[in-house]
């Protein structure tokens, strides 16, 4: 890489990380600041000052990291330059995370006590998968079609024995699809509804379903990618598919990107798009602050029956590490990787 390209790539990565840290306080629910449940008065007053200071640290760190990367990418640099660049990027991440932890500690002094009163709606909510079971089963249908085609054209694969690994990859794809489907189902059924009625409840439900839809679409993406890669081995399909994989995945990627933008706009649980008066019945995300570890990165609460809880550091949901079901799910996520390592590589 030349001096210019090194500097450009590293600057881009650092700026991206800084932007992410900059936007982080905006991701959470309106009454949660730096992973702490705080009163509205603090959000409108001292919280703003805290956010400004936090962002000042983040951008100062990013500016220092860019300056350092420009110095290190000078043409006279040593062969160790790549490692030094990575160290600069990692250093910038550490500064961002440290700023977050500092702000988290500051916010904790204003934390609202976790109440012992709890409310829930007696109306059953929709826990079905978006698009229904047939749509959710789509990735399996894609993989099955690829397997049938591969079997039908197996005699046209140039080198003998290759079809075995191709079927292996399709089986791996089925495992991945099963994994994303399990995550989608558990997310749909094992998350807590915090807002009990009105617009706030509807917004929260919409937000949850969008997360589930994203997971289902990830399953589609994996199935399409693996099917296309395996079918490329057959010359007849290889000519058609060659170079078109990115194009095939583009709509899915754009759709998921659109959902991510939408989530940024509506905030965690869809609550930033809701009128404050609609949110008054529910404070925070119904999890105690003390159960959040490392500035809101991990949630550990044995007495909480929820497997998934709303993330306090970023979008979407995170696992309750104090629940055995969460460990089971994590084990399942590693299963496809383990299978691939044992049988494919």
């Amino acid at each position, binding site marked *: 890489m030349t001096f210019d390209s090194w500097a450009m790539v590293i600057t881009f990565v650092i700026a991206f990380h800084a932007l992410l840290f900059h936007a982080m306080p905006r991701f959470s629910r309106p009454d949660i600041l730096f992973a702490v449940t705080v009163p509205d008065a603090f959000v409108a007053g001292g919280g703003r000052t805290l956010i400004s200071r936090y962002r000042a640290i983040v951008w100062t760190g990013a500016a220092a990291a860019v300056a350092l990367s420009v110095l290190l990418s000078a043409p006279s640099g040593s062969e160790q330059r790549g490692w030094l660049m990575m160290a600069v990027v990692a250093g910038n991440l550490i500064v961002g995370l440290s700023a977050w932890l500092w702000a988290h500690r500051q916010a904790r002094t204003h934390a609202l006590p976790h109440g*012992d*009163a*709890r*409310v*829930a*709606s*007696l*109306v*059953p*909510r929709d*826990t079905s998968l978006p698009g229904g079971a047939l749509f959710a089963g789509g990735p399996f249908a894609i993989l099955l079609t690829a397997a049938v085609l591969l079997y039908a054209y197996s005699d046209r694969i140039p080198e003998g024995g290759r079809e075995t690994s191709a079927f292996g990859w399709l089986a791996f794809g089925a495992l991945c699809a099963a994994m994303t489907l399990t995550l989608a189902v558990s997310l749909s*059924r*094992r*998350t*807590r*509804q915090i807002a*009990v*009625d*009105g617009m706030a*409840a*509807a917004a929260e439900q919409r937000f949850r379903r969008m997360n589930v839809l994203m997971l289902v679409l990830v399953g589609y993406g994996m199935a399409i990618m693996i099917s296309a890669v395996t079918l490329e081995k057959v010359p007849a399909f290889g000519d058609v598919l060659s170079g078109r994989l990115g194009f095939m995945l583009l709509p899915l990627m754009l759709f998921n990107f659109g959902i991510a933008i939408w989530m940024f706009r509506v905030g965690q649980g869809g609550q930033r798009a809701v009128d404050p008066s609609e949110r008054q019945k529910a404070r925070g995300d*119904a999890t105690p602050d003390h159960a959040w570890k490392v500035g809101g990165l991990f949630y550990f609460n044995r*007495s*909480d*029956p*929820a497997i998934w809880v709303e993330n306090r550091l970023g979008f979407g949901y995170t696992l309750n590490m104090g629940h055995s079901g969460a460990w089971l799910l994590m084990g399942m996520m590693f299963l496809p990787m383990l299978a691939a390592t044992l049988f494919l590589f």
Partner: protein
Amino acid sequence: MPGAPLVSINLQSSTPVYRQIASDLRRHLVEERLKPGDLLPPIRQLALDLGVHFNTVALAYRMLADEGWLELKRRRGAAVIARNAPRAVDRRHVDHLLRQLGHLAAELRSAGMTPRQITAALQRIAQGARS
């Protein structure tokens, strides 16, 4: 979901949580905010929303099923059923409740309410009027 019937609990209360849940449910049933045919959330879902063990909710549902208000549905929660047939009166249970009502009436008198006010309030409650 405007005006959805709610269940609320307080973990600090001396009343066991399953009784608090059953009590709220019973109030909605008596006041006909939950009508025959209405479905209640599955046990696990309600337990999740309230942050309690699912056995606690199961106990409350079972209690109301024993009273003839609910029909339990496997994996689908419970359905409110018509409770037309008069049930055999459990004299001991009624006596126990009346004793509790007596204690409450005494507490209300001690808090400054007149017997007339207590009677009016009880009448309102018995007729299912919301306060």
